[in-house]
């Protein structure tokens, strides 16, 4: 982990209230799929954790949705500005040796999965992607996943694009039977997947103060041993499916 001054190379709206930002660190660290960065914004006390969606030689991308004052301020940041960022944080998705894998992303849970798909495709793994959004306007990255050579299916809650309903509805409709999943998205989606699948990884969110494992703000319990806990910012955000308890 480093504290970096990252230069903003771009910051554009790619879907409804959803922005893609390119950041160039002073010294590019190794960032693995599923890791996140923690961004300081002027006028806000706590940093904002955002997943890295894609990594290049000397820069990386994030995709974020404007949901409150902090992400609104982030959306106003201009090309050329410098941001104070802790990077990278958290335990990544392991890119296991697999013949095929199912990637399931919901809303702003989609971003970290793009780098996952990229790295699996680099290893020739067959990648099937199911993306869930509220509506067509909120959708992003369908084409980008396709360009990697993934099979991509989309579900929207209002049926304005793809399957009407959740990612599980899309999986059923298209008879997708791949049993190893890599997923990130809203809690309810993760909980449903946790009950349906037994192999793969889920990535979680939590309100964080430090993002580096000291404040104990972001903990979750082990699914079996209620004395055992994990820090989502440190042992997570990625956990093997079934490892983490959903009530907390």
């Amino acid at each position: 982990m480093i504290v970096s001054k990252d230069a903003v190379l771009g910051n554009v709206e790619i879907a409804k209230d959803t922005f893609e930002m390119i950041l160039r660190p002073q010294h590019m660290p190794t960032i693995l799929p599923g890791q996140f960065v923690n961004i300081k914004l002027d006028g806000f006390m706590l940093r904002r954790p955002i997943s890295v969606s894609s990594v290049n030689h000397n820069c990386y991308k994030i995709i974020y949705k404007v949901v409150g004052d902090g992400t609104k301020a982030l959306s106003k940041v201009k090309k050329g500005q410098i941001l104070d960022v802790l990077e990278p944080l958290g335990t990544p998705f392991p890119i296991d040796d697999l013949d095929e894998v199912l990637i399931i992303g919901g809303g702003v849970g989609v971003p970290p999965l793009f780098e996952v798909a990229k790295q699996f495709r680099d290893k020739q793994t067959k990648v099937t992607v199911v993306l869930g959004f509220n509506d067509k306007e909120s959708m992003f990255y369908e084409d980008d996943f396709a360009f990697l050579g993934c099979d991509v299916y989309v579900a929207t809650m209002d049926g304005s694009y793809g399957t009407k309903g959740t990612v599980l509805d899309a999986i059923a409709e298209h008879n997708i039977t791949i049993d190893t999943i890599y997923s990130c998205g809203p809690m309810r989606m993760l909980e449903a997947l946790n009950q349906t699948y037994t192999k793969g990884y889920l990535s979680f969110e939590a309100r964080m103060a430090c993002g580096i494992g000291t404040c104990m703000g972001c903990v979750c319990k082990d699914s079996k041993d209620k004395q055992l806990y994990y820090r989502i910012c440190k042992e997570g955000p990625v956990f093997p499916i079934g490892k983490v308890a959903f009530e907390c």
Partner: protein
Amino acid sequence: MLDIKLPGLDLKNPIMPASGCFGFGREYAELYDLSILGGIAIKSATIEPRFGNPTPRIAETPSGMLNAIGLQNPGVDKIIETELPFLKQYDTQILANVAGASEEDYIEVIKRLNDCPEVHAYELNISCPNVKHGGIGLGSDPILAANITRMAKAVATKPVWVKLSPNVTNIVEIAKAVEEAGADGLVLINTLLGMRLDLHSAKPIIANTTGGLSGPAIKPIAIRMVYQVYQAVDVPIIGVGGITCAEDVLEFLYAGASAVQVGMYNFVDPYICPKIIEQLPTVLKKYGCKSVKDAIGRSHV
């Protein structure tokens, strides 16, 4: 110029991370050498391991934050077994923060830590607002506060500092009661009880309903309390609450603190403690102080 000798704590500089804002130092040890710190107030230790409160435990506020961790910690035995040996490698002073659900708990934790040479002094947390049957009652009543202090002093083989709650009508009364009961020093302040509501659900953002407010927002209250208590007691004071820079440290020294703790700002800037230690000599000089000792209590002369 920066050194200061306090009960149990022979500090090379007056800067230490505050309890609960630095864990047991492991994460920060990856970033810098902990030996540069004056001391470290480690996370509250309780007899049993504690998971703490349900999440969310964190909320942002204007110039501050709320937390309701609920004293999550692995329990004193585990701390003795794995954390203190880790901290031993660093040349710094360890202030062991002690908490519990009953007076007996506190005493038992102290007894177990008495034999640990890594611990230089105790910090009785009688002020955590996030434990139900716990500290908050003790910290808001002078008789109870004096009582637990007396009990702690009776068993402790190391100096006892008492960390007070700001959620009281009269901080001076509590401070004097605790001093009279034998406290070797006072730590001021813990967090103020606060709350935030989510506008969508109308429910508190913090699962535990209320949380402890810390950060720059509370600094004026902390400064006021250190100032008032300094005039009323003879034991030294460690100041804490909203420190973000060396200038803030100087303000606490002027008010009467002999050393300070940095809390939530470690989360904002993980290098804040080394930065402050580096800048402090310049800032002392800028405002005409020859040393830390020279600055302590300057507002009162």
